[in-house]
């Protein structure tokens, strides 16, 4: 496989030795203060290329006591989940979750992911882990049929998490394409009120609206993931990293370059000063590992995505603006607390009045 957006540019690295993994788990699970449970993620490349090692580690995990409840997980491209591997996961599906990478239609998936669509047993994933969202990543190639891709994922019976790939060339000529496709997605969800909109179109207006009523010093501007706090990662070299995005397999030549004095617990350290005057700052996702590998700082966002974030925000405000007018028709609105509904209404109005004309001009 050679996914077009892969951020792991060094594919010649070793597989984590089983004993190193065991030592790491024994050590780290003694530090679980403040956590109710933990998750053991097996991360590739493609994790199933190391299935014998995964099997050995998982069966070792299941045969010893741990200080907190746990679950095992891996994201896979699905191409090797057949035969003996499939049967092992069928047998252990309740204690090992697999998440599938699926980028939309067959054409989109094949373009992004080396023609691998037909090698996936979709029914198996749907049957074993019906609660698990597939991970859909959009590239400048596959964005042209963004809406059709979502329809296909839903038609296959999956929920999904979708985002534009980091580290790609997101050029302005793709903005009207994205606007057109998100309009289709918004219209689709308006026609299908029983479906809950994806996180991609359901996280901005509430944050913007909630922050609007707060003084600047009290505005929520939280960290976007658990890197260095809720997550810890060990590489095949035995070194520990804040998450897999900082490992040597990414673009950083030496993962040790992550500053040891950096306080990952202080959310303020992740704020990009260049974004402080942007109205979407508090609602704009950021991958700190990707930031670091590109720029050498953890907070410096990929600015080629700025206009695309604005398109997403306007699409979300359009979708929720219409749904708010028929709360009984849309369960996602009906179940909101009044404070949530207020935040959404405020956010819709702010984004529409501030960004809608700008985005229409793209």
């Amino acid at each position, binding site marked *: 496989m050679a996914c077009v*957006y892969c*951020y792991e540019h060094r594919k010649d690295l070793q597989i984590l030795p089983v004993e190193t993994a065991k030592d790491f788990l024994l050590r780290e699970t003694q530090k679980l203060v403040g956590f109710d*449970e933990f*998750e053991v*993620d097996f991360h590739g490349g493609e994790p199933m290329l190391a299935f014998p090692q995964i099997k050995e580690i998982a069966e070792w995990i299941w045969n010893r006591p741990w200080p907190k*409840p*746990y*679950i095992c*997980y*891996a994201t896979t491209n699905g191409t090797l989940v057949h035969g003996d591997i499939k049967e092992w996961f069928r047998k252990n599906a309740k*204690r090992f*979750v697999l*998440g599938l990478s699926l980028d939309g239609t067959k054409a989109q998936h094949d373009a992004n992911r080396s023609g691998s669509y037909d090698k996936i047993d979709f029914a198996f994933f749907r049957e074993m*882990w019906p*609660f*698990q969202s597939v991970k859909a*990543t959009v590239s400048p190639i596959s964005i042209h049929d963004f809406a059709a891709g979502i329809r296909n994922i839903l038609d296959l019976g999956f929920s999904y*998490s979708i*985002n534009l790939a980091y*580290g790609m060339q997101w050029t302005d000529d793709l903005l009207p394409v994205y*606007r057109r496709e*998100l*309009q289709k997605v*918004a219209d689709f969800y308006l026609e299908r009120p029983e479906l809950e909109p994806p*996180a*991609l179109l359901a*996280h901005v207006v*509430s*944050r913007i609206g*909630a922050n609007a009523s707060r003084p600047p010093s009290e505005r929520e501007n*939280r*960290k*976007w*993931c*658990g890197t260095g*706090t*809720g*997550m810890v990662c060990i590489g095949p070299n035995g070194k520990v990293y804040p998450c*897999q*995005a900082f490992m040597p397999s990414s673009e950083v030549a030496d993962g040790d370059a992550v500053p040891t004095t950096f306080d990952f617990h202080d959310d303020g350290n992740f704020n990009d000063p260049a974004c402080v005057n942007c109205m979407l700052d508090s609602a704009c*996702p*950021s*991958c700190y*590992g*990707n930031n670091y590998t590109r720029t050498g700082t953890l907070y410096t966002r990929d600015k080629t995505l700025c206009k695309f974030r604005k398109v997403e925000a306007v699409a979300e*405000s*359009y979708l929720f*603006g219409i749904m*708010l007018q028929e709360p009984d028709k849309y369960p996602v609105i009906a179940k909101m*607390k*009044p*404070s*949530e*509904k*207020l935040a959404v*209404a405020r956010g*819709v*109005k702010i984004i529409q009045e501030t960004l809608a*004309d700008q*985005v229409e001009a793209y």
Partner: protein
Amino acid sequence: MKLTQESLDSVEALASELESQATYASETEFEQEYSCFGCGNSCENGCSNSCSTSCGGEYL
């Protein structure tokens, strides 16, 4: 993706109505709910390429 003025007025009316209800004054704190287990808080807000975590399942 631009709402009509009529729609915007309707949203504004809803916001005004909610704001006018004193019982909500103490509820202005809006907490985003997260259902992502692995990395703590990212999936529900549009996670990045590098995050890969479970969305459910039974903890042992």
